[in-house]
């Protein structure tokens, strides 16, 4: 039951630079939730810090603009607090892979039923251009005047290694494909990771580069084959976009609900609980 995407605009004007990839992500997101016909009050989005952190304010939904690196545990708490909600966590490459990297494997292995959208521009944009965990080696920036020294992370391979049950890559300039990926990710019953290549037009303009290296995942790829997914994710410098892996397994809140239902069979009312402690 599709609905109008206009109803999801909050009325707060985005503060991103004109041409920022994040506009493409936001528009794809409006389109995806419209296509799914989600009621605004049933959607909750948690974010961290960075240009991507502003995302929830632009959406007519429940949002939480938290501290740097913690959108995943925030989103986990929101979902556990009300399992009926459609919950997303959004971040950038610094928020997700640097300060917040410790949460990524755990959200994935718990398989909490949320969608994690990481807008990767391979640079710190809000602080005006320092290398991020996905910046290429040798990149010359203000904080790396002699060239950055570290090897960039490959987040899609990480997500697969962390046992994320849904792993995809999109590009902010291909909004139609990105919308479809987001729809699938939100519908996936478990932890869904979507890497979105979302260029920073001001400090690291990779539009042309991405257009040259991106190619769709081959049609015959089996999304339940994790070895094949890993092989596609390791291809370099060409980049595949689309869905690498999708293999549902029991999600965290369902497991918790079952465990709780089982425990409630031996429900003890509070005054009775106190009896256990009698001298």
């Amino acid at each position: 039951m599709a609905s109008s995407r206009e109803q999801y605009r909050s009325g707060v004007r985005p503060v991103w630079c004109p041409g920022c990839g994040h506009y493409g992500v936001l528009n794809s997101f409006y389109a995806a939730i419209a296509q799914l016909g989600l009621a605004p009050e049933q959607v909750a989005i948690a974010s961290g810090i960075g240009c991507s952190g502003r995302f929830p304010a632009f959406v007519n939904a429940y949002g939480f603009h938290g501290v740097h690196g913690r959108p995943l545990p925030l989103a986990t708490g929101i979902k556990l607090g009300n399992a009926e909600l459609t919950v997303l966590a959004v971040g950038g490459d610094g928020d997700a892979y640097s300060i917040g990297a410790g949460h990524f494997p755990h959200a994935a292995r718990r398989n909490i039923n949320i969608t994690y959208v990481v807008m990767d521009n391979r640079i710190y944009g809000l602080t005006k251009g320092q290398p991020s965990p996905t910046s290429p080696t040798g990149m010359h920036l203000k904080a790396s005047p002699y060239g950055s020294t570290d090897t960039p992370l490959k987040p899609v391979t990480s997500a697969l290694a962390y046992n994320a049950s849904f792993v995809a890559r999109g590009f902010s300039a291909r909004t139609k494909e990105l919308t479809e990926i987001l729809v699938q990710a939100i519908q996936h019953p478990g932890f869904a990771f979507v890497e979105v290549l979302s260029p920073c037009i001001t400090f690291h303009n990779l539009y042309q580069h991405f257009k040259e290296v991106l190619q769709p995942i081959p049609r015959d790829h089996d999304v339940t084959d994790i070895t094949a997914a890993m092989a596609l994710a390791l291809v370099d410098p060409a980049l595949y976009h689309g869905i690498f892996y999708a293999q549902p397994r029991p999600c965290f809140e369902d497991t918790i609900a079952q465990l709780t239902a089982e425990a409630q069979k031996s429900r003890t009312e509070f005054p009775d609980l106190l009896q256990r402690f009698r001298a």
Partner: protein
Amino acid sequence: MTVHDLVVRVGGESGEGIVTLGEVLSRIAAHAGLEIYTFRTYPAEIRGGQVLYQMRISTHQLTSQGDRVDVLVALNQEAYDRNLGELAADGVVIHDSSVQPAEGGGRRYYRLPLSNLAEELHFSRGRNIIAAGAVAGLLGLEQQHCRHVVEQRLGQRGKMLDQNLQALDSGYCYAKDAFPPYERIALPQIREEERPERLVLSGNQALSLGALAAGCRFFAGYPITPATGIMEFLAGELPKLGGTLVQAEDEMAALAMVIGASFSGQRAMTATSGPGLSLMIELLGLASMTEVPLVIVNVQRAGPSTGLPTKTGQDDLFLATLGGHGEAPRFVLAPTSVEDCFYQMVQAFDLAERYQTPAIVLSDQSLSMRLETVPPFGLDDLAQPERLLPSLDSEGRVEDYLRYRVTESGVSPMSLPGMPGGQYTAEGLEHLPSGAPSYEPANHEEMMHKRFRKLRTALAATKEEDMAISCGDAQPEIAVLCWGSTAGAVWEAVEQAQQEGISTGGLAVQLLSPLPDGVIQDFVAAAHTVLVPEMNFTGQFAHLLRAPLAREAQSILRFGGVPFTPHDVLVKIREADHGQ
């Protein structure tokens, strides 16, 4: 009735079951109708090192571990050598036969061949229970109480229970046969109808029960000594009540999950110790800024850094009341006893929910781990935490909603995800009443006022007896101001000093943020001396008191990792009295 008051200290090697010995013995006394108060220290390592378990047993309610040791139970030479200095001159030593005591003086010595007795039973690991039986026998506790406790506590497995009962009986009978009774350490037998109704609880258990009574249904935490017991307790109980407990990947994740769950409408908490609270501080500021109710328990241990993980301290007061960048209002509460842990936890949830502000409960290692006999909780008068939600129109929608609407009380209705029309973004940036980010100076000032105004509103709405408790003279010449578990030693010191004719009184402040200035000022109005005992190096509470007191207070500081004794405080009260 004669007042009986006996302190028994048990020492031995870690891994020998010293804590079990101490707990079993304490519970036997409690089951027999006596009051107990235990104290334990142990090494951070799981095995190796000396463990000490002390219990005070009395016919009247206890508030501290006492000043002296009457009975020393030494399971090895080191336990004997190390603890002899604190044993009363007319005290009693019960020692394993491997220990070589320097007999003589006014003390009595009882030799207990633990290894031989254990060998007879083919139960080498039963030495601790044999010792428990022997000590109980010597103290005159009835065998039926001993057996009841062993059945209750060590009875999960049939064969183990039989072995433990045999061990208990073996020790008990050995004491009855071989140990001449000694009036000095004999405990009275309380008739069944005269036994007070009591719960035996640790501070961590009382805090957990308080959380459940307050309606907490979500917990996320990360294991840390000495707070882990709270998570373990709630892991067993929350699911039974339909609640959720998550072991998070770190303390930041734990508090972020708590914030998220509370945002969704759950009554939520975490529990940690100093190092964990340090990690949580940024998120505490977020909760304050976004006005999300939650409770954080900090079971303090001696710091800084990793510090002394298994020793006690009160050195996180600044961190709790002032920690973090910017200025983020929060409530800070400190229970004074195991019983008070329950009530302060309920109050913490009440304040947090009512004023949409995080609340920190400051416990400490000694309070968290010790057992006390506690009167049954008054469940009927408990506060019912309530969060202000927006009113819904006839179609179930929230109309004209502003999440951070500026109000006289500072409290704005909080919509929950799922409520149509109530959508907003909880914003860590300074924000307009709508929640939209704003850097306007006038708005920032108004919002700072709004958030801090909630503390003032809360203070005006809180009864004085819920902010502080006092003992001794209401207008004392020597005023002792304290907080947290130090209160127990203060109560006893004040009582003793009053018996010596000194005008003194104690005030334990339970609400540490916002401080109830008026209550404190009234209490010290007639005092020539203000004493502030606390377990830290820099006198943190005395610092916080400077504004309300507007005078010099005299700090009494202990920071070695062990609690105050009443004597520590009494000496200073006497000095202050002589100085006049």
